[in-house]
């Protein structure tokens, strides 16, 4: 099973002829992702070589989805154009097949552009947006799998731990921690560090709860906003599977943007302390340090009779 993205999902790449898009498309093919082509307006009809194979390029997403019956698209388009590209993908999936997953990797999209794009996507209920400013989503397979984004594929293995995180490299850290106790991953999702994004923690928790492959969840948050607190309240009521949590930014000074646009403590709200407290209240097992995620997860699995 896994969530949202199956191992053999058919994937398009928007911005496949750009430097970033081309590089990462190659890495995805190398991992085993079922890339079916790409979209770059003005370059339709051309092909792109990835790992020694040729892949078609289309001018429009509607055309690309109609021909390939793609399940998902991943966006590597510069910030000034990214929001519109998200909307194009959402409309194309909605009109051609009524569903699809749009993954946006781009960092630095203006917040008000994202406000519009998220409202647009939400008007098309079959379409899911992941990101922006995120590493993407990966469902490791027995051999290969679906790596959709910029994460290093080789650190993953198929398994039963679901991972959801706001941060890229901390997700990799969590993956390595699961591997250190001989556990693989069902699906890993980076939801991104921007203040306005698509899929949030709660939707991920709900999907993992319903996914038979997932036995336990690792959730990694960071300072800013209150998505973690809401997720904790949701988990307390709706998630029966063990959850391990960590929040980055306990030492961040208030009012300073810590790299991610969303990682800022404003008006004394959104601190790591507040979020850890909400996790504990909800019965989430907390790691004080990312290097502890493995041991805390192992204990949580044992407590649940899963090891």
């Amino acid at each position, binding site marked *: 099973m896994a969530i949202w993205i199956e191992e053999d999902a058919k994937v398009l790449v928007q911005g496949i002829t750009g430097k970033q898009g081309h590089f990462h498309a190659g890495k995805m093919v190398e991992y085993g992702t079922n890339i079916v082509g790409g979209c770059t307006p003005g370059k339709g009809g051309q092909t792109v070589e990835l790992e020694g194979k040729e892949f078609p390029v289309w001018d429009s997403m509607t055309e690309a989805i109609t021909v390939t019956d793609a399940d998902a698209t991943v966006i590597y388009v510069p910030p000034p154009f990214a929001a519109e590209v998200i909307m194009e993908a959402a409309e194309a999936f909605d009109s051609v097949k009524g569903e699809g997953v749009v993954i946006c990797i781009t960092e630095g999209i203006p917040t008000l552009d994202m406000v*519009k794009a998220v409202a647009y996507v939400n008007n098309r209920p079959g379409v899911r947006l992941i990101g922006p400013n995120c590493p993407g989503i990966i469902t490791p397979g027995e051999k290969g799998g679906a790596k959709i984004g910029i994460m*290093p594929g080789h650190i993953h293995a198929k398994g039963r731990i679901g991972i959801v995180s706001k941060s890229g490299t*901390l997700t990799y850290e969590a993956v390595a921690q699961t591997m250190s106790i001989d556990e693989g991953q069902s699906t890993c999702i980076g939801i991104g560090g921007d203040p306005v994004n698509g899929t949030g923690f709660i939707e991920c928790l709900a999907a993992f709860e319903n996914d038979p492959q997932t036995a336990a969840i690792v959730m990694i948050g960071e300072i800013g906003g209150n998505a973690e607190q809401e997720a904790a309240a949701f988990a307390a009521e709706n998630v029966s599977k063990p959850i391990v949590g960590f929040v980055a*930014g306990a030492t961040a000074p208030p*009012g300073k943007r810590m790299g991610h646009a969303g990682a800022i403590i404003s008006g004394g709200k959104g601190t790591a302390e507040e979020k850890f407290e909400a996790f504990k209240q909800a019965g989430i097992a907390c790691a004080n340090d990312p290097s502890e995620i493995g041991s805390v997860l192992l204990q949580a699995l044992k407590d649940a009779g899963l090891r």
Partner: protein
Amino acid sequence: MNIHEYQGKAMLREFGVPVLEGQHCTSVEQALAAYDNLNSKVVAVKSQIHAGGRGKGTLYHPQTREEVMQGGVKIAFSRDEVETYSTNILGNVLVTIQTGDEGKVVKNLYVESGCDIAHEYYLALLVDRDNKSVLIMASTEGGMDIEHVAEHTPEKIHKVIIDVNAGLLGFQKRDLCLALGLSGMSLRSFGKSLTAMYEMFVSQDCAMVEINPLVKSKSDEIIALDAKISFDENAEFRHKNWDQLRDLSEEEDVEIRAKETGLSYVKLDGNIGCLVNGAGLAMATMDVIKLYGGEPANFLDVGGGADEEQVKTAFSMIMEDPNVKGILVNIFGGIMRCDIIARGVIAATEALSLEVPLVVRLAGTNVEQGKKILAASDLNIHPANDLAEGAQKIVSLIGGDE
């Protein structure tokens, strides 16, 4: 990105929001000339810094740190008072609840006409993360700290969530006016200002517009008496005018240079420098240093694709801080390869003749090659296998947390 009150008011005026007459000054002479020009019996003499709480702040002499005056915003009733206040403000350090103990040197002043106030309101426009939309927040409790109002009398804060595709609608403005008890002429004046502010917020890519207080004058006019405006830095590419609005003296020099080279750096007060890839991991690295009794000197994210040169730049930025007694490098290689980072670390250590202890933790892509490269060098680099071990090592190498 923040701007000064005087710049914010110029922008509000441009969009049609009523503000009082005022002049931006950088000297006592200019302040006196402003007083003469404004022809107002009462004027406000206002310190311009990028921090709130100015009115309740205290001014100190920059060298002796002797107290000069209470209050960074003063009401002057005469030319002499304008002279006294502007002399006491300009060039001195203003410490407010938001500046930290260091405070900020005041280089800019705003001299503004007075007005007869009937009531003070609070008004803010911001991007609301929960609703993923623009939010207007207003209260009858103007002039007060809004966090205080939110905590003690939350029923006095009224919110309007805007559907960006529909824009700010007439009924939303009317509802807000009714909630604030506005009627007649002030209702129309408020509605007009609200439309103008929303237009400004969207077209200028604001992150936050806070008017505290927004006042109703005795002649029933709505006037913005303060203006705290910040912009969404992601939208910089479509606002060429921001270069002129930016006050670089309000930002840390090294943070500006970091941004120019594609690094993200925030200076902190500790003594352990950090070099990390990824914002989340960089924050977690600081947290873990603290967990093991150390204090981080900075937040530094070199991003996902740093090369040898950027690693070198990052090291030199860390070493500019005289408090740094040791450095922890924490890299989880994804796209970034550990062997490249290892070479960068060695090149930087040699080029900068680094003398402080250095702990390097590498994981991810090409980690074995990276570790070999570090081990083969005769430099004094301490390897670590995970973040906890790295933090413990650097804390003990610099002699604990004293």
